[in-house]
């Protein structure tokens, strides 16, 4: 009897298992570490910062739909590669005044690009030239404007790709690290004012009807404007699953008739207001290109050439052996770093935009 009581007492007073202690300590470390990381991170300028599509559109709308000569569209690759301010400065040096907007957005697809173009033209934009940055992934996807933001989870950073090592990234990495642990440990993420501000900004963006992070707008647009698009929830779920798979692996090129249809639609829409479109096959890191070749990259390129020919659109391939920027110009496998973007924008301005304007495209000389 005494022995049983002793055993019961031993169980009752048994200390916490070591693993539970480790987890409690880890949670404490994360909470303590996040403050300095957030503080330092918020004071360092992000060299990769690009205004979000929603912000660009707000700026453009403030101009009342006027003054838009060149539009860049595409996914994050085009977002990282084309810098409107560099282009405007380069054009000015050549005696041409023009205004450019980069409406590219992460995870954008051909369909969402077509939707964006349609919208801005509806709102009064009359671009003389649209530079459409394209890639295999974009042309393979059917979803519309679906973009999962990480801000809500991670605070100030906006994507999870590997980046060139520099001080800004040391801090963003800090966020990834603490954010990752927090996510695993399910610790609520609204402890810092920065997070609250970010969440509020995300909500504001949704409020104006432009929402990179929300697929609702895309769904509505899809229902009203795009023929033969996914209509049911199930189809949308499939599109979402497809997208998340695509984001995590090198996926094969899938030839979707709807993508070609959307391209045709967008090109005609731009032409209807007197503009021209140029397809640009976006550059990738050389190794990435080699890997993509195993997954239908050449099929995609052939398909894109045929589309350009059928629609009588100029195609510029920036991912050739000679045309591709050096690997050191990339910040990760797919996106150019700031210097690489500057160089490429100058090249595109001199090689495509200025010759086009001189050949008859309108701009303020």
């Amino acid at each position: 009897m005494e022995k049983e009581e002793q055993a019961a007492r031993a169980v009752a007073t048994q200390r916490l298992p070591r693993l539970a202690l480790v987890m409690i300590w880890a949670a404490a470390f994360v909470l303590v570490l996040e403050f300095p990381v957030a503080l330092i991170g918020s004071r360092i300028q992000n060299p990769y910062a690009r205004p979000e599509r929603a912000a660009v559109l707000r700026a453009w709308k403030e101009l009342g739909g006027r003054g838009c000569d060149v539009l860049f569209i595409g996914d994050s690759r085009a977002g990282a590669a084309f810098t409107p301010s560099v282009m405007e400065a380069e054009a000015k040096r050549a005696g041409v005044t023009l205004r450019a907007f980069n409406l590219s957005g992460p995870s954008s697809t051909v369909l969402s690009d077509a939707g964006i173009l349609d919208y801005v033209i509806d709102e009064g934009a009359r671009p003389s030239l649209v530079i459409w940055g394209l890639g295999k992934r974009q042309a393979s996807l059917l979803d519309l404007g679906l973009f999962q933001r990480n801000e809500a989870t991670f605070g100030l950073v906006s994507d999870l790709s590997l980046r060139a090592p520099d001080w800004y990234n040391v801090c963003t990495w800090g966020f990834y690290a603490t954010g990752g642990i927090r996510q695993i440990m399910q610790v609520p993420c609204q402890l810092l004012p920065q997070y609250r501000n970010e969440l509020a900004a995300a909500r504001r963006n949704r409020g104006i009807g432009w929402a990179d992070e929300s697929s609702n707008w895309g769904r509505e647009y899809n229902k009203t404007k795009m023929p033969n698009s996914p209509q049911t929830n199930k189809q949308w779920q499939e599109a979402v699953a497809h997208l998340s798979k695509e984001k995590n692996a090198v996926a094969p090129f899938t030839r979707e008739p709807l993508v070609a249809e959307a391209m045709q639609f967008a090109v005609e829409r731009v032409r209807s207001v007197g503009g021209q479109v140029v397809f640009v096959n976006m550059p990738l890191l050389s190794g990435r290109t080699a890997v993509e070749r195993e997954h239908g990259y050449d099929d995609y390129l052939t398909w894109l050439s045929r589309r350009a020919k059928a629609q009588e659109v100029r195609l510029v391939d920036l991912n050739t052996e000679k045309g591709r920027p050096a690997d050191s110009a990339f910040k990760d496998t797919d996106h150019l770093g700031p210097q690489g973007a500057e160089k490429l924008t100058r090249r595109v301005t001199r090689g495509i935009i200025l010759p086009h304007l001189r050949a008859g495209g309108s701009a303020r000389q």
Partner: protein
Amino acid sequence: MNFTDGRYPVFLLLIFTLYWLLRKNNLERKLLLLAAGYTFYAQWNVKYLGLIIFSTVLDYFLANAIAAKEDQRSRRLLLTSSVVVNIGVLAMFKYYGFFSEQLNELLMSAGLRSSLPTLNILLPVGISFFTFENISYTLDVYRRKIPPTRSLLDYAIFVSFFPRMVAGPIIRAAHFLPQLNAAPQYDDKRVINGFYLILKGLAKKIVLADMLGFWLADAVFADPSQYHGARVLLGVYAYAFQIYNDFSGYTDIAIGSARMLGFELPENFNRPYVARNLQEFWHRWHISLSTWLRDYLYIPLGGSRISPVRTYVNLLITMTLGGLWHGANWTFVVWGVFHGGMLAITRLVQRAMGQGEELQPAVTLREKAWVAAQIFFSFNLVCLGWIFFRAPDVPSAMRVFAQLGHGGSLGLGHPYSKLAVILLLISAVLHLAPLRWREGAEERFVKMPAHAQAAVFVVAVGAFTLLSGQGLPFLYFQF
């Protein structure tokens, strides 16, 4: 569910907590393990759970029937049924497409139009592993090495034990079932040790394997003609360490997860690249597969007991089938034949020099230099094999070989490619480090205070989160 999936730690912690809460309720504890195994598997494809349940029930009843029969002919018939059904299922899912394609090509080249239908089916994850485990179980019962388990639940847990379900290590019923039926004893040290192994496995997979693959190996194998010979060689070496870190990392996570639940799984790797010849390599690489092939294929074929020539043939057959086990592709066949051939040559040389399989430790400096040369030579032989193993087809492998002799520039343009080279060196140094260093690190971690362990955990998970952008699956999942 993947071990690197964010859901896995949550899943493991949940099962861990429930398991130890239920440790005194035998039935509930076992039902939890079974439910965990099936849930884990259903994350890939819920339909294929039926396949696992089918093979579990079939082998359970066949093994019991074998044990109940005294008549040798009936026993053999029952055993044959088990082997035929297991191999048949594996063949249908894994090899039917390959062989029908080869046969169709053969018929077409002979001018015949007849063609076999192709099956558009997905390969069930881990089928090669659980098929081998089922076969070893019925064979062991047939050989009267173990009595059959009378509990269908126990056998179902053996087949579906989640930590090793999809990519091994291949376990034996004789090793697992006694552990399942022993009263579980919670041990803080073992749990922390398991936790350490999981962190170590994740580090191998995410920090080393994925980085080496993504930044050094994949591009070279995708298009070797783009690179100079030195860069191609670097890609091949990177792949050697990628596949080692990937698979041994997976195994560490599997062993660690099992250990947290109080189970011991067999070791699968023992620094394979320090092997002095290919014979030793196979004692150190994928040990659970090589011992399976030895016990259930090589020895039944006659092993080395009949004649020298027959030994070489047996080695060739065993390794060719071992190669084919990895996948339905000529590259795996060539890889298997290469290893079989090399093992046969090693035997031949040993016989000619009057040496046994036993390797003598090096004492003098000269002997140590000779051992280092042997290790280097063996490592390069293994790398030759990896070229076939990694390439999508034989002509692509030949292109890699052809490119090896072209030029000496490394051409590492991106900072991450340079970082990956450093990781390759770190990987090699860690590989060469004496075993006692690793054991020492393990012991030190276990003895650390909780806050120090938490700090290691935070830093490690931070690094994993940073580098997990590649999202590459474990290489051995495909087998």
